C-alpha cells in the first residue's frame, strides 16, 4: 500500500514545497536556507521517483486513482516502464541542477522566486510524465510551460531574456490551446479522457466490442476526430520538443535562461514533448489502432521533421559564437535524432520487420536518456566556464579557460563524447541502434542521414572543445570563483554518461523491456489491462 501511495504522492506533495516558498522568501533573509530547502525538496522527489521506477520494473505497471474514483471518472496516474524510467532520470537530473543552483545563485536576490519556479518546473515535468489522463497532461504541460517562461525571463532587466521569454510564451500558449481544442474532439467522440481507455477504444474495441462500463463506446466519427485531434496535438507536442519548424523558440530561450535552467530546459523539458508524442502515437493511437493510415502518414512526417531538425540543428551549431547558443542548437539536432528513432513504427515496419521496430524505438528512448545526461552536463560545464571567463558567453572570450581546470575539462570531454557518440559512451550505442534499425528496415538513406548529422555536428563540438580547452588566448580568469561544488556535480554527471555506455548490454536489454511495455500490441494491452483492473477493483463494491 505504501508503494502505491508513493506513485500518487510524489507530484502533489512537491506542490506544497512550492506553495509556501514565496512567503518564506519574504520572511527569511538567509539565502542558504533556500538552497537547502530546494535541495531537500528535490531529494525527496528523486527518492520517490527512483522508488517508483524500482516498483514498476519489479512489480509491473502501477495505477494510482486519485480520490479513489475508478479511472475514466477520475484522474489516474499510470506508470509503465517508459514513464517510470524517464521520471527517475528527470528527478535525478533535477536534483543535480538544484544543487548546482546553490553555487550559481550565490548572491542574487529573488532566490525564493527562482526556486519556486524551479520546483514548479519539476512538478510540471514529472506530472507530465506520470499522468494517465489526456486532459491532466494539458494542465501539467501548462504548469511546465509557465514556469519555463518565467525562468527564461528571470533576468528581467536584460532585453534579450525578456524577448526570448515572450517569444517562447506567445507561441507556447497557442500550442497548448490547440492541444485543448484537440482534446475537445477526443472527448466529443470517444467520451473519455483516460489514455488507457482511449487506447482500448482505438485498438481493441474492434476485436472485443464490449463498451467500457463508464465511458461507453463512440459518440461520433472516430476517424475524423482522430485526424483533427492528432494534427492539433502533434503540433503542440512538436512545439514542446522543438522539432524543426517549431524549433525557433529554443535557441533563443535556452541560452538566455539562467544556466541551471538552460540545463533543465535542454535536457528535460524537450523530453516531455517527445514523451507525449510517443505516448500518443504508440499507446493511444497504438501500432494496431484502426486509424493506421493516419498514423503512418504522421510518422513519416515526423521522420522527415526529425531529419530536418537534425540537419538544421547541426548546421546552425557550427556557426555559433555563443557557447550556450551552440549547445541549444545541438539540442535541436539531438531531438531530431530521437524523433528519427521513434518515427520508425509505421505499420509496414511493424508487420514486416519487428526487429527494426524494436531497435528504432529502443534507440530513440536510449538516445533521449543519453542526451539528457550529456546536455545537462555540458550546460552546467558552460556555466562554470562562463563564470570563470568573467561572465562572457562568447567562445572567443572563453579562450582556453578549461586548461587551468582539468577536472572541468574532463567533464566537458565526457559530455561531448557522449553527445558525439564516441564508442565507450552511451551516445554511440544509441546512435548505433537507430542506425541499425533503419538498415534493418531497408531504409539505408535514413541511416546515412544519422551519420551525416553526427558528422556535421562534430565540427561544432570540436569548436566547443577548442575554444574552451585548447585555445591559446589570454582569458581573464576570475581567480576568486570557487568551482569545487559544480565540478563535483558535472563529474558525477560525466560518470553517469560513462556508465550509460559501459553498461550498454544491460541498458539495451532494459530499453527493449521498456519498448515492450508501451509500443507493442501486447504492451498496449497490458497498459489497458492495468487500468481496467483498477477500474473493476474500485467499482466492484458499488456496481455489484
Amino acid at each position, binding site marked *: 500500500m505504501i508503494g502505491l501511495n508513493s506513485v500518487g504522492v510524489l507530484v502533489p506533495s512537491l506542490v506544497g514545497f512550492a506553495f509556501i516558498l514565496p512567503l518564506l522568501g519574504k520572511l527569511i533573509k538567509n539565502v542558504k536556507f533556500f538552497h537547502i530547502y530546494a535541495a531537500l525538496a528535490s531529494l525527496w522527489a528523486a527518492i520517490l521517483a527512483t522508488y517508483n521506477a524500482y516498483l514498476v520494473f519489479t512489480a509491473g505497471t502501477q495505477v494510482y486513482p486519485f480520490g479513489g474514483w475508478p479511472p475514466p471518472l477520475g484522474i489516474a496516474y499510470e506508470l509503465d516502464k517508459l514513464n517510470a524510467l524517464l521520471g527517475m532520470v528527470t528527478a535525478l537530473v533535477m536534483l543535480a541542477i538544484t544543487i548546482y543552483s546553490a553555487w550559481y545563485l550565490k548572491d542574487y536576490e529573488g532566490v525564493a522566486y527562482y526556486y519556486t519556479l524551479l520546483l514548479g518546473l519539476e512538478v510540471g515535468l514529472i506530472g507530465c510524465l506520470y499522468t494517465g489522463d489526456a486532459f491532466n497532461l494539458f494542465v501539467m504541460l501548462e504548469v511546465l510551460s509557465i514556469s519555463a517562461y518565467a525562468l527564461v525571463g528571470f533576468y528581467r532587466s536584460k532585453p534579450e531574456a525578456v524577448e526570448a521569454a515572450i517569444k517562447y510564451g506567445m507561441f507556447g500558449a497557442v500550442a497548448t490551446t*490547440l492541444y485543448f481544442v484537440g482534446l475537445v474532439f477526443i472527448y466529443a467522440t470517444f467520451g473519455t479522457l483516460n489514455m488507457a481507455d482511449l487506447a482500448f477504444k482505438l485498438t481493441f474495441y474492434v476485436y472485443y466490442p464490449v463498451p467500457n462500463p463508464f465511458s461507453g463506446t463512440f459518440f461520433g466519427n472516430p476517424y475524423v476526430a482522430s485526424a483533427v485531434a492528432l494534427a492539433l496535438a502533434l503540433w503542440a507536442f512538436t512545439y514542446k520538443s522543438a522539432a524543426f519548424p517549431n524549433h525557433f523558440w529554443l535557441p533563443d530561450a535556452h541560452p538566455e535562461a539562467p544556466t541551471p535552467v538552460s540545463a533543465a530546459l535542454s535536457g528535460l523539458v524537450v523530453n516531455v514533448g517527445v514523451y507525449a508524442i510517443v505516448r500518443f502515437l504508440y499507446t493511444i493511437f497504438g501500432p494496431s489502432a484502426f486509424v493506421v493510415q493516419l498514423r503512418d502518414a504522421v510518422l513519416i*512526417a515526423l521522420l522527415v521533421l526529425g531529419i530536418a531538425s537534425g540537419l*538544421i540543428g547541426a548546421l546552425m551549431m557550427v556557426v555559433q559564437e555563443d557557447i550556450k547558443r551552440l549547445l541549444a542548437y545541438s539540442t535541436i539536432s539531438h531531438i531530431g535524432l530521437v524523433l528519427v528513432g521513434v518515427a520508425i513504427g509505421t505499420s509496414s515496419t511493424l508487420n514486416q520487420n519487428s526487429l527494426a521496430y524494436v531497435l528504432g524505438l529502443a534507440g530513440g528512448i536510449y538516445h533521449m536518456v543519453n542526451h539528457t545526461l550529456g546536455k545537462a552536463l555540458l550546460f552546467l560545464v558552460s556555466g562554470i566556464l562562463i563564470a570563470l571567463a568573467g561572465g562572457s558567453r562568447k567562445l*572567443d572570450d572563453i579562450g582556453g579557460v578549461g586548461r587551468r581546470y582539468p577536472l572541468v575539462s574532463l567533464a566537458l570531454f565526457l559530455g561531448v563524447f557522449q553527445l558525439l557518440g564516441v*564508442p565507450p559512451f552511451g551516445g554511440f550505442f544509441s546512435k548505433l541502434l537507430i542506425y541499425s534499425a533503419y538498415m534493418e528496415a531497408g531504409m539505408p538513406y535514413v541511416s546515412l542521414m544519422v551519420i551525416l548529422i553526427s558528422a556535421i555536428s562534430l565540427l561544432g563540438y*570540436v*569548436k566547443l572543445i577548442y575554444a574552451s580547452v585548447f585555445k*591559446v588566448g589570454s582569458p581573464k580568469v576570475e581567480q576568486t570563483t570557487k568551482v569545487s561544488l559544480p565540478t563535483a556535480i558535472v563529474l558525477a554527471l560525466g560518470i553517469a554518461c560513462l556508465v550509460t555506455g559501459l553498461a550498454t548490454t544491460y541498458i539495451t536489454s532494459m530499453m527493449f523491456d521498456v519498448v515492450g511495455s508501451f509500443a507493442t500490441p501486447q504492451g498496449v494491452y497490458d497498459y489497458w489491462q492495468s487500468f481496467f483492473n483498477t477500474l473493476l477493483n474500485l467499482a466492484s463494491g458499488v456496481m455489484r
Partner: protein
Amino acid sequence: MFLDPLTATLILSGVLAFTALITWFIYSVVKSNPTNVSEEFKEPYLAGEPTSTLSRIDAPSNTLFWGFIYGLSRKLYHYLRERMHSGILNEWGEYMSVYLGLLSLIGLLFTALILLRGG
C-alpha cells in the same frame, strides 16, 4: 548482431581512432593563426578559429579547409541565418503555420480516404 563482441570492438576502436585523427587534424589546422583583425567583415564563425581569421580576404593556407566548406555553404548559411532564423516572431509563425497546414492536409487526406471507402 550489433552486439557481437568482435564487431563491436572493431567498430569501437575504428571510430575512436577516426575521431582522434579528425580531432588532431582539426586541432593542428586551427592551432596557430596570425590574427589580423578587420571588424567590418562580420562573417559566420564556422570552426574553432576566431572571427577575425575568417574575415580575412586572403585565407591563410592552413585555413583553406574551412574556407572550402564556407565557400560551398555560403548560400545555405545565408538562407539559414538571415532568412529562416531572422529572430522575427511573425516569420517564425509562417514556418510554424505551414507545418500546421501540413498536418491539417494529412488529416484531410485521411478523412477523404475514409469517406471514399464509405466509413
